């Protein structure tokens, strides 16, 4: 066994299939997108090379009134919601379940169900719930005498964005809960018992023992949540397609729109390239943040 893994050629052979697959379906399209972003191309005929001509237009001039920059802020808002609401809530649920509660398995499954449902179904479900004419939400408000609180949720500018993002936050709570639940379950009982003997229980044990023990998983969750928010697509596309423009637009829906509806393949590819760079930067920024924090704690 060791002989196999000490042989460089053998390692290369083992890694190769995955590497080929990754390069073919991951890396090559990214490079291709970068090339397309330098073209003036309608996606149907042949393109002309124009270099970085459109880059400034996407971010500054905005000839077509697409308002791409606004959509970036929208995803940052979603990232903030995810980190501030979704992950703390998921952690709380994981903690309660992992520390033992009646019907633990039932609740664990219950919270995980939204993750297993496809986004299209969730989008359509919330479209029905938020429907201004016969939706459950408006009907319920009417029934309890809060008729004045009725809204056309997905149309009014104040409520539209949150009406999409809250379902998205709700959808993925179960996923992070499960990750953190497993991590908390993995903490050895001895450690918690020792803490108890030292007088640390409840809140104190959570802060001093559990959180540091599952910190790696929390970091992973935060990275997933932020990156996932930055490339958010499905619910916006299903529920509003960006309407009322540009209130609920996110970069990926604008990219889709530019490429497939406006027939501007190059223009849309610039957005794709931006998203790749943005996600990478976000990842490195988070890594750096975690590291400096760790060093700070260590000192």
């Amino acid at each position, binding site marked *: *066994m*060791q*002989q*196999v893994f000490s*042989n460089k050629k*053998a390692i290369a*052979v*083992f890694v190769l*299939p995955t590497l080929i697959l990754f390069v073919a379906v991951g890396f090559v399209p990214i490079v291709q997108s970068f090339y397309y972003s330098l073209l003036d191309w*309608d*996606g*149907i*005929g*042949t393109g002309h090379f124009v270099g970085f001509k459109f880059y400034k237009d996407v971010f500054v001039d905005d000839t*077509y*009134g697409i308002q791409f920059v606004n959509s970036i802020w929208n995803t940052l808002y979603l990232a903030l919601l995810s980190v501030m609401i979704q992950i703390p809530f998921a952690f709380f649920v994981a903690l309660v379940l992992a520390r033992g509660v009646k019907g633990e398995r039932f609740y664990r499954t219950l919270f995980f169900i939204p993750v297993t449902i496809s986004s299209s179904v969730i989008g359509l479900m919330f479209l029905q719930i938020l*429907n*201004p*004419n016969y939706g459950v939400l408006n009907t319920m408000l009417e029934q309890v005498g809060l008729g004045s609180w009725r809204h*056309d*949720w*997905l*149309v009014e500018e104040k409520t539209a964005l949150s009406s999409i993002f809250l379902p998205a936050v709700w959808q993925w709570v179960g996923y992070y809960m499960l990750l953190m639940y497993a991590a908390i379950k993995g903490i050895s009982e001895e450690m918690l018992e020792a803490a108890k003997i030292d007088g640390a229980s409840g809140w104190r044990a959570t802060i001093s023992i559990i959180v540091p023990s599952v910190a790696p998983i929390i970091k992973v969750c935060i990275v997933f949540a932020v990156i996932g928010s930055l490339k958010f697509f499905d619910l916006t596309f299903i529920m509003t397609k960006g*309407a*009322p*423009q540009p209130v609920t637009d996110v970069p990926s829906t604008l990219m889709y*729109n530019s490429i*497939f*509806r*406006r*027939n*501007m*393949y190059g223009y849309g590819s610039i957005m794709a390239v931006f998203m790749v760079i943005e996600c990478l930067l976000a990842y490195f920024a988070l890594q750096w943040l975690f590291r400096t924090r760790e060093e700070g704690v260590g000192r």
Partner: protein
Amino acid sequence: MSLFRNMATIGLTSVLAAGLAACGSNSEKESSASASASNDHAASSSASSSPAEKIKITMWSQFSDPNSKDGGFIGFFKALEATKAQFPNVEIEHTGLEGESYKTKIKTASAADQLPDIFFSWGGGFAQPFVAGNRLLALDDLVQDGTKDKLVPGTTDNFTFDGKLYGLPTNIATANLYVNKELFESAGAPLPTTWDELVAAINALKAKNITPIALGAKDRWPAMFWNSILDIRMGGTAAVNAALNKTGSFDIPEFQEAARKYKELFDMKAFGENPIGTSYDDSINMFLTGKAAMLYMGAWVNGQINAEDSQVKGKVDVVKFPSIPGGKGNVDEWHGGSGETFFINAKVDHKDTVWAVYKFFMETMAKEVFIAGSGSSAWKGDMGDTSKVDPLAIKIGELSASATGFSYWWDQMLNGNDTESMFTSLMSLTGGKLAPEQFNKELQKKLNSGK
């Protein structure tokens, strides 16, 4: 451990070999397919003595559901079956995909130059990139075989680019004002023929707590219909078409007045409380369940209105859109026309066979769609037994027989980029973010800049 190593090597090698073999067999298959295709060609061109060899024609369309009640779907599938029966030597492989995803599919396939032999498309700006990319077969020589004389004049305008014809028409689709007679009676309002009567009817219906007009503005294009017809009544089809063809302007006093009228309708809640949050399907349901009294929509809803399970069956009439005093357009100018077609791939094999199949199919579809009640035929000639044709379709045929002008759907006339800009501006106007005059200025600036 060397045994394990050997086994690992053998295992990997065999996996790789299998992969290579798969690649090999794949390309082999392809080459054999192309070989047989060329055989086909030889057979069909030299002699038709070997009918055993079938020619395969691939066809894509947006007609995905054979059980749909939409007249366009019914007509398509009847025509497809008839064509299959007519040409036993031809195997037609049809793939249907509905709506937006269909547009994406043909654009993607076109980018990769993998379009099927025959594919459904819209004319106007939507087809422009396909023409510019040399993806479509020009039909000018082919239609000289007498086909051209069978067509209703003006129905090929949306498929003609730089004087070259690329597609045959099927049907003339018009948008019509459907009125629920029962609801109008209960509100005591006459069917509207002028703008003032329309406004009066809206107020009377509102007083009875009936939604005057069903509109699904969430899907954007139903709202566009209202904007278009108001423009047509105020400025006339010639002015509208000129603006869309970039030879005229969107920012003229007539269209400004039309935009004000459009806004006025929303302000008086003519479309109910939440038209922008209502989808097309929801709006159709509102009309079909008798909750709304009017609907301005294409003839494809005829089938749904008079379906067996419809609650408004027999209660609905269709009228010409009311005239607007002071407008340059008259009541005989229509929103609609002939804009849907099938194109033939420029690189098609067996051109003559495909043309014969195509020609037969288009003419059959035109008739079948008419018989299914969704639009008049763009082909002249005997329609056969019309006794079972939907009464609404016949009425629309009578009303539009005196048509003096057509202006087709904006989202097909304009190219993709302009369409999106137009929708963004229109929805801003609808949502009250843009004043009517600004709307016209913005349209002109975004769509016809420099003109």
